[in-house]
């Protein structure tokens, strides 16, 4: 493999080639449009449909090619191929709807059937084309794997105009599509034409797929509908933000892919674009600030630490409840299956925060005033929840939230009082500590 020279790299990065500029503009516009449509497709849980549509364009492309060949138009010009592709992907949707209506086959199976049958038909047509004189078949191969480099300026203007239209429709109908994706029955009940909106969304998906054929190719076009919105979910929470980030991810993937393929002309553009999208996805998966692996493991770790702290505070409190206020370490060790090292390190942490004091002379710990009130709150909440689970077993599991600041935030005061009464009647060792907020009254 030949590495590009420095001069070449500079020329491409500074967009000195007219060709690179055209290809880049077309590809990025497509990426942005696909990212926008894809956000809705993903949230509507129809990603697999996008894949099916992508594959269903293959026979259409072949048919478009054959018709153009037969009528004497240049068979490699994009428009007849795009028309054919649209036609067969619409036929694909129709086939799906028919299967859904007239059989009891589940959706995933129906999708797989349509995908494979249409693709098989396309492959058969392609082999027929390869036997035609004139050697046009290599042009078609570009469409399967994507070859942005062969985009002409007419093709680019088609891609640009289409992408713009798709983006404008997505932005204009942003709230309508969001509602459709979130809660279709409600949309219907409040009078939105949900079926028409759904069809429009699917048409946009078909349109995007056709636009993407030249850039990323039939097989991989679905990647740009699914990967950018999935990546966006790692970075943000709101619907508007997600659509924006998704569009951005789509645009960037195409940008990187096109640059890479300009540097390594032998590699198919589509594959490079999808690999770029995959890299962006992986980065989000690890570093994403809302749902990334890192942030999630930090959160889990923090919760573990809090739980350990709570356990230790409760243990000290429960030991002190029955005896003098100073608790020997040996007694703590019997409370839970803790190692001595765990206990001492946890005690050191709690002492640092001023929740308890440790005396070396008799190897024992004592809660400070703050520690005592915090521990009292914890033990009270814990025991009340425990009792609630027993008393109201039929409804309790849906409500128990041991982490809730105070049980009253979740349960009504009446139930809490009732639980407190029950606890009061129990033997003394299970008394509920008084509510720290009431204790000074």
């Amino acid at each position, binding site marked *: 493999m030949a590495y590009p020279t420095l001069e070449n790299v500079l020329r491409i990065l500074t967009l000195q080639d007219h060709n690179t500029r055209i290809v880049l503009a077309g590809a990025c516009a497509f990426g942005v449009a696909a990212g926008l449509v894809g956000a809705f497709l993903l949230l509507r849980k129809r990603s697999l449909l996008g894949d099916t549509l992508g594959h269903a364009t293959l026979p259409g492309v072949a048919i478009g090619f054959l018709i153009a060949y037969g009528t004497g138009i240049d068979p490699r010009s994009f428009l007849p191929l795009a028309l054919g592709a649209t036609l067969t992907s619409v036929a694909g949707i129709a086939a799906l709807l028919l299967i859904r209506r007239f059989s009891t086959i589940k959706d995933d199976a129906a999708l797989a059937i349509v995908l494979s049958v249409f693709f098989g038909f396309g492959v058969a047509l392609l082999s027929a084309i390869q036997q035609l004189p004139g050697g046009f078949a290599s042009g078609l191969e570009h469409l399967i794997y994507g070859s942005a480099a062969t985009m002409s300026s007419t093709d680019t203007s088609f891609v640009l105009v289409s992408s713009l239209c798709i983006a404008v429709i997505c932005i204009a109908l942003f709230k309508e599509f969001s509602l459709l994706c979130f809660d279709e*029955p409600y949309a219907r009940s409040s009078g939105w034409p949900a079926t028409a909106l759904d069809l429009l969304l699917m048409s946009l998906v078909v349109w995007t797929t056709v636009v993407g054929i030249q850039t990323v190719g039939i097989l991989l076009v679905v990647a740009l509908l699914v990967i950018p919105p999935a990546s966006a979910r790692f970075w943000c929470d709101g619907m508007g933000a997600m659509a924006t980030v998704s569009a951005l991810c789509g645009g960037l993937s195409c940008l990187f892919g096109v640059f890479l393929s300009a540097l390594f002309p032998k590699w198919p553009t589509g594959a490079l674009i999808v690999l770029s999208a995959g890299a962006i996805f992986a980065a989000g998966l690890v570093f994403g600030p809302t749902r990334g692996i890192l942030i999630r493991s930090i959160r889990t770790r923090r919760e573990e630490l809090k739980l350990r702290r709570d356990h230790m505070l409760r243990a000290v409190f429960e030991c002190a409840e029955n005896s003098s206020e100073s608790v020997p370490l040996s007694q703590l060790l019997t409370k839970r299956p803790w190692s001595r090292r765990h206990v001492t390190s946890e005690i050191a942490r709690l002492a640092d925060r001023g929740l308890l004091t440790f005396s070396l002379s008799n190897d024992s710990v004592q809660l400070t005033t703050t520690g005592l009130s915090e521990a009292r709150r914890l033990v009270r909440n814990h025991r009340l929840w425990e009792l609630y689970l027993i008393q109201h077993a039929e409804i309790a599991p849906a409500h128990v939230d041991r982490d809730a600041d105070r049980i009253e935030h979740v349960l009504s005061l009446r139930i809490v009082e009732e639980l407190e009464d029950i606890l009061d009647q129990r033997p003394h060792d299970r008394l509920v500590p008084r509510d720290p907020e009431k204790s000074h009254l």
Partner: protein
Amino acid sequence: MTTPPLQINSLNVSYHSKLVLWDVGVSIQPGRTTAIVGPNGAGKSTLLKAALGLIPASSGDISFYGGPLRKCRSRVAYVPQRESVDWDFPVNARDVVAMGLYRRIGWCLPVRSIHRRMADEALADVGMADFACRQISQLSGGQQQRVFLARALAQKADLYLMDEPFASVDAATEQAILAVLERIKNAGGTVVCVHHDLETVAQYFDDAVLLNMRIVAQGPVIDVMTPENLRKTYGARLALVDELETNLSSSIPARK
């Protein structure tokens, strides 16, 4: 007599050629709260959905305020079952409530600050003012239910159709929903709830419709919730009915 907010005559609905609702006739009285009660699979939710045209009816006649639903969409608000949507959707509580205003905002126009304020007011009505910016995935089940309720309230409708709003919610939510029902009623509105808990029907609602594929009885709870009718609705599950008999006889007079 005033036109009933919802009048259903001889409604038949079938799923895959199995009849689910059988010649159902219901008349909902204005300014009152009505519970639709019946065993699992009795077609309670189906009745609401068919009335709203969400699932096709084989035959029957449905009128809202004396006309077809499309003539008075804005007067009717629907609260679907909480489980019917994916709560992992990237929106916050305020966004969901604002969906109740989309019709008023109209095609293609964005949600503006005045709508956000209206959404916040609706959230405050269900005691969720502090949660406006919370992601819906991070709300508890009861809080999610209240968000759904707030979305319907934001519509400022006259008739509210609610599908199991009391199903497995916490005590705070239960109180909030009851307060909302009371407020709707005081403003002259009408509420229809699918309800699963026989014990609370008499406490929470004015009227009841007993449904088990067909209508067993309808009218004021005091007349409808009789052991005789409940036996007809719930069939052989007599233990439950007998237990209720004692509860009901003590709870109804206490309320009146």
